């Protein structure tokens, strides 16, 4: 954005006051998460009015548990989108991670080591994504689309299509245990979302991600190591997908190679609802998380309200377009 040319004329007090108010208002309306929180509150109120079964602790808890792996993946997806990239391989990496963890544990590998190895494998997958995109200059959509099929394929090969069961009992703690009232998985999700959001908002270290996504050429010319930043975002996205896969495997006590087909589209939708731009340079982790919450509510609502399964796709698609359009309208007003 071009800066307005400086005019050396001192503003009067009244003018200064008006500028300050306009600035404040701008900043509040600029908190786009507010819009999403508003939409979620409205959706929640609507659902509560329509049915007594929505606002029950059982339903809320099952919604949050169900969305935890997705929310974790959305954190990584948001960061990749902000950098101007796209990662379609997240669902497959999640499935691969769960099955790999299961197989390692079945072989007798200690649980903690299995988890570490799977996270490392996730990092390798992310690095491959990043290198294919930066060094080989393959379009991110194509590169991660390829990884989507490859990772899923690897999961199928190592399991021969079987679900991996018979995991050691202690592993269930993450997804099924109780820590301060809820499964540890939820605390892990909260920690990842909080850490991700704080990092993107305040760490100077993460600023380059926005610059790379906003204007790659300018970022490159200003000395930012664009390729390194990009590879880092893909590594992060894949590692978070691995975390999601491990937690899911713990909840199901099974490594399922068919898990999460299409999850990447849900994650992208959630991130975009939360404010991320597919062109890069914009988006917050908190927004992505709220987007995931919103989509989870919609999915939950359709089942509780008994909407026909044949109509559910239409309904969720229309709502998705409406919410993003609303956001687009508000954006143009702000400009």
């Amino acid at each position, binding site marked *: 954005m071009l800066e307005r040319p400086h005019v050396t004329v001192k503003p009067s007090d009244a003018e200064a006051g008006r500028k300050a108010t306009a600035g404040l208002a701008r900043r509040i309306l600029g908190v786009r998460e507010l819009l999403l929180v508003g939409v979620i509150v409205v959706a929640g109120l609507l659902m509560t009015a329509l*049915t007594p*079964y*929505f606002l*029950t602790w*059982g*339903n809320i*808890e*099952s*919604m949050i*548990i*169900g*969305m935890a*792996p997705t929310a974790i993946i959305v954190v990584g997806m948001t960061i990749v989108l902000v950098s101007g990239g796209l990662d379609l391989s997240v669902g497959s990496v*999640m499935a691969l991670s769960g099955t790999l963890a299961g*197989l390692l544990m*079945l*072989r007798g590998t200690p649980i903690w080591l299995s988890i570490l190895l799977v996270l490392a494998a996730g990092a*390798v997958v992310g690095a*491959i994504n990043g*290198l*294919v995109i930066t*060094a*080989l200059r393959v379009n991110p959509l194509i590169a991660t689309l390829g990884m989507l099929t490859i990772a*899923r394929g*690897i999961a*199928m*090969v*190592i*399991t*021969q*299509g*079987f*679900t991996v*069961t*018979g995991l050691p009992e202690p592993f269930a703690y993450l997804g099924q245990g109780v820590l301060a009232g809820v499964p540890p998985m939820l605390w892990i999700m909260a920690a990842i979302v909080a850490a991700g959001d704080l990092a993107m908002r305040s760490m100077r270290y993460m600023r380059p991600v926005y610059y790379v996504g906003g204007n790659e050429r300018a970022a*490159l010319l200003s000395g930012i190591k664009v390729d390194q930043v990009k590879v880092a975002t893909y590594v992060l996205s894949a590692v978070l997908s691995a975390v999601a896969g491990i937690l*899911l495997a713990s*909840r*199901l*006590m*099974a490594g*399922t*190679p*068919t*898990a*999460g*087909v*299409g*999850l990447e589209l849900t994650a992208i939708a959630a991130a975009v609802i939360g404010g991320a731009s597919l062109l890069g340079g914009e988006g917050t982790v908190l927004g992505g998380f709220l987007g995931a919450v919103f989509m*989870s509510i919609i*999915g*939950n609502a359709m*089942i*509780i*309200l*008994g909407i*026909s*399964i*044949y109509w*559910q796709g239409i309904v969720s698609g229309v709502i998705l377009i409406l919410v993003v359009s609303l956001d687009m309208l508000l954006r143009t007003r702000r400009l």
Partner: protein
Amino acid sequence: MHSRLVRDRARTPVLAAAGLALLAAGYLLGAASAPGPAVQAAPSGELYVYLANVTQVPFWIDQKRALEAAGKYLGVRTEFTGPTTADAQAEAAALDQIIARRPAGIMVFPPDSKTLIPGINRAVDSGIPVITMIGDVPDSKRFTHIGIDNYKAGEEGARVLAATIGGRGKVVVGTFQAAGVLDRMRGYKDYLAKHYPGIQVVGVVDDHADPAYAPQAYAAAISAHPDLAGIGGTDGDSGAGAARAVIEAKKKGAIKIVAMDRNEDMLNYIQDGTITAAIAQKSYMETWLAVNLLYWLHHNIGPAQMLPDWKAAKIDPLPLDVDTGIMVITRDNVRQFRHATK
């Protein structure tokens, strides 16, 4: 300009490193992987192909095992193939490609009763016998159909679920949107409507055949119906999904589950009683039978000897339809259903 030159020159070592990394990863994964079926090192070039759709789900494990075993037994090559989605057009295209390879016989799990009519007829006219599996294309020139009608499988499930919940109460039916599975769902609903007026189907849940999504779908249905008595599943992922949801809602025992197919992850739930029973097809037998029937036709033995020349007589020597029935998995026999993994 300079940076681009530098980047281009950097490509080769990066490419080499990436290639090595992939090789290393492949080796490591090979070491960690389950022993797969040996590639069909067949003495003969004879090939029998099983074409299906949604091919990545565990439902096909028994078909693949039977194909392999029949191949070894008869000394022929077998193959299992098809699109990973419920895509009728993709399956029709795959069928054409298979015909071009001139196999000795084709088994096909059709996406519906119409799309593959031209393809099947082309195959038969060119001398390749075709058997339809677990779903028929009656208006085609297929030689026989082997399997259970999906609608009837749904009826069986409904029968067992009704017995399990004592003939009355509210139930939810779980499914996903593939033609055969929807047939099972319809069989479920129709059977209950016809025979059990005291049972109310209060909802149909689409679990997307995704083990990651299924639990929250069933959990939502449980939230919406606090007095739910039972959940009937019509696809392989409904069992474990419903079981997970019932356990997390702390309603194990209060909500009875009757599942379908024999996915590995649901067997533990049958063992511990969360799932009362599962309805499974005799997939192994269906496939074994199909390969052998095709083999007999190709080698002119068995039923093919019914007439001196069945082709000239324009007679189909095979049965019109083979109804393979279902088997019920319960706590008593669940051990037998565990596939040996690794």
